[in-house]
């Protein structure tokens, strides 16, 4: 019984934290937020040198050959730093999709580039606001050519490779598209969190390659994997937000005492801490299931996702409130967290999707258990 990360994994995490402390202080996030640059290119390159993008890519394809527990630790640190790089879409989704469904040729073509950071991957799934079932996708493939409009695509303006959900002969599947090819038009969109880039991509007979076996069910399982890793990113952000808030309220005096001495604040801090701990425990469980490809993964992914998204958003809302007036200024960092929490919660499906999926999966498991 050891429901914790190993010392080696924690050492890797500390290395990541040190690297990000040096190369991605919050001012790095702010720079991207305030400039037209879509992401921090030097940081992206540095991360690749640290082996982060290739964490779960086998060494034969130029990856570091770590496991998903190591990647979870990296995701946590990327989240803590609010690192303004296209990490999640490229590593949690595109790379995973190729690892699970790519042919030998597809792997050889893309994994080395994804691992060394020379290629950025993304996931082009949704087409309109709301919650889109895989069945409702309008993009279509005929004779190896993809047509359709994806909106929004995270990092769609800078990605080199898209994993696109589309229909062919009425069946939903995933397709690899080299975004340097023809028949592709992309447009950067205004992002709610300008430290992370958003775009729309119009495919007009773009060349694409099918990912074998990536049907609607496989897409759902891919989302599960990405959700677990994203949960670590969210918890990283929540932890950092809570720490910054803690430091502020202890140092800020009103009525002759630190404002942290007020129960109105300290008790809500305790509640936030509980929310984050509950998210952390669910995420640990999901990481275990992911690393072991355990049958619990589908349920665990829902738990991790729901708890982490909620904990991060709640923490950032209170973060501004407890900072008072300065928390509402552009100059302070609270809004970086407030925006990132919403941005990450918007990826990969609504809370409604995950909550209903959780009940489906619990009921199915129960039904199966009763039938057995």
């Amino acid at each position: 019984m050891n429901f914790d990360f190993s010392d080696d994994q924690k050492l890797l995490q500390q290395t990541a934290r040190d690297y990000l402390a040096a190369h991605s202080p919050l001012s790095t996030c702010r720079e991207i937020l305030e400039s037209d640059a879509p992401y921090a290119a030097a940081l992206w390159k540095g991360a690749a040198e640290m082996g982060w993008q290739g964490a779960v890519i086998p060494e034969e394809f130029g990856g570091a050959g770590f496991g998903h527990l190591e990647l979870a630790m990296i995701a946590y640190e990327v989240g803590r730093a609010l690192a303004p790089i296209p990490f999640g879409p490229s590593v949690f989704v595109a790379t995973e999709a190729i690892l699970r469904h790519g042919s030998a040729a597809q792997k050889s073509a893309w994994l080395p580039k994804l691992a060394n950071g020379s290629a950025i991957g993304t996931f082009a799934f949704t087409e309109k606001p709301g919650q889109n079932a895989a069945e409702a996708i309008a993009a279509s493939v005929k004779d190896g050519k993809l047509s359709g409009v994806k909106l929004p695509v995270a990092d769609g303006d800078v990605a080199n490779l898209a994993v696109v959900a589309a229909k062919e002969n009425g069946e939903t599947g995933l397709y690899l598209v080299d975004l340097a090819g023809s028949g592709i038009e992309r447009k950067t969109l205004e992002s709610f969190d300008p430290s992370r880039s958003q775009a729309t991509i119009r495919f007009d007979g773009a060349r694409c390659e099918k990912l074998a076996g990536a049907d609607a069910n496989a897409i759902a399982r891919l989302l599960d994997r990405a959700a677990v890793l994203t949960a670590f990113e969210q918890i990283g952000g929540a932890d950092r937000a809570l720490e910054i808030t803690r430091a502020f309220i202890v140092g800020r005096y009103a009525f002759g005492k630190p404002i942290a001495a007020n129960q109105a604040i300290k008790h809500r801090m305790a509640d936030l801490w509980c929310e984050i701990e509950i998210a952390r425990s669910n995420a640990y469980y999901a990481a275990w299931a992911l690393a072991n490809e355990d049958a619990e993964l589908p349920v665990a992914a829902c738990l991790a996702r729901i708890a982490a998204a909620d904990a991060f958003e709640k923490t950032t809302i209170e973060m501004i409130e407890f900072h008072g007036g300065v928390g509402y200024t552009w100059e302070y960092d609270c809004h970086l967290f407030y925006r990132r929490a919403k941005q990450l919660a918007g990826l990969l499906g609504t809370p409604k999707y995950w909550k209903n999926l959780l009940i489906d999966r619990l009921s199915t498991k129960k039904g199966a258990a009763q039938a057995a």
Partner: protein
Amino acid sequence: MDFNDTPEEAAFRAEARAWLEKNARPRTSMTPTISGEDLTAEIVKQSQAWQKKKAESGWACITWPKEYGGRGATPIQNAIWGQEQANFETPPDVFSIGIGMCGPTILTHGTPEQKKRWIPKLITGEEIWCQLFSEPSAGSDLAGLRTTAVKQGDEWVVNGQKIWTSGAQICEWGILVVRTDPAVAKHAGLTFFVVNMHSPGIEIRPITQINRGQGFNEVFFTDVRIPDDQRISAVGNGWAVSITTLMNERMSIGSGMGVGAIEDLVGFMDGIEIDGRPASEDRQVRERIAEFVVKARGLKYTSLRTLSALSQGKTPGPEASMSKLVGAVLQQHAASFAMEMAGTSSALRGEAAPAQAAWQERYLSLPGLRIAGGTDEILRNIIAERVLGLPPDARADKGLAFKDVPTGPPKA
């Protein structure tokens, strides 16, 4: 129980409406602006012109005494005027602080000379006013402010910094509370002034909010001189004067919560698709919206009850704090929920997300409303102590001279 005007009220309403119909265009449907917008010179000019027009016909500051240019009207008449004016297109208002907070304070505590000097030009819109209360280290604990004034002959010399001053750059005058005696308890050492915003030594720097709005400023004072005849009330009586301002502030912020937009969520959800059906058919969505609407309507009817109390000659008390306390969080939650339902598109903003633009704007502006004019926590204290009569918080600064009150962590 009756929602109709009395005959007198109806007559007044008709008179107001007739004047408005002659002088303004009816309002067309529009999303109300809820973020601080830039105060361009053009906007200021339009606002002043409208104020002047109203003043010339006796429709500006209608509850204020006739001798200074008001109409001497009742609070209920003022509310009726507000309802009617809301039906017409009017320029953005740069006088809300002057009329809502500065004027009432001077009318309550100023000398006849002071009233004569400032009130008429405030009513006609010739001079715009701002408020200089909060400081970087004195927000909720306003009486802990550190800007000082020292008497030199017939003048006071002011040094320090104020913050959260709306519209400072367009103002002629500001009301200012400063510390004139650090050796006494914090509430006892304050004095209240009117300061000319063009005085040498005043520097104004805009603050950018998280929604990129710039409604507020920092104002720095370096050896700014204020003549003693611009002092309001006695030296050391600044706290009592400030309370008048704050009570007027809370009433004016709370009454403008605009929770009516909550019901727009029903329509918004018609346009969002969830699993192939309109979100408005999803029971979780419906029940969540119902909960929002119940609160929003409750606030609306509460304001009608307040108006009834006004109509019966009662003064609204600290219970007015509820509107901002409940309304701001309600709107923040509703905005978050609307964004959530937009799914992946919630990561978009502006033109890229037209349907949810108003909700995003709320999500970015509401955190400020929860803080401005009293944080949620201060408002809960007010309701607990002044409505429910619960005891005050234990105070660490009780009985201490201001200079001895801890202002930061002990040095290691």
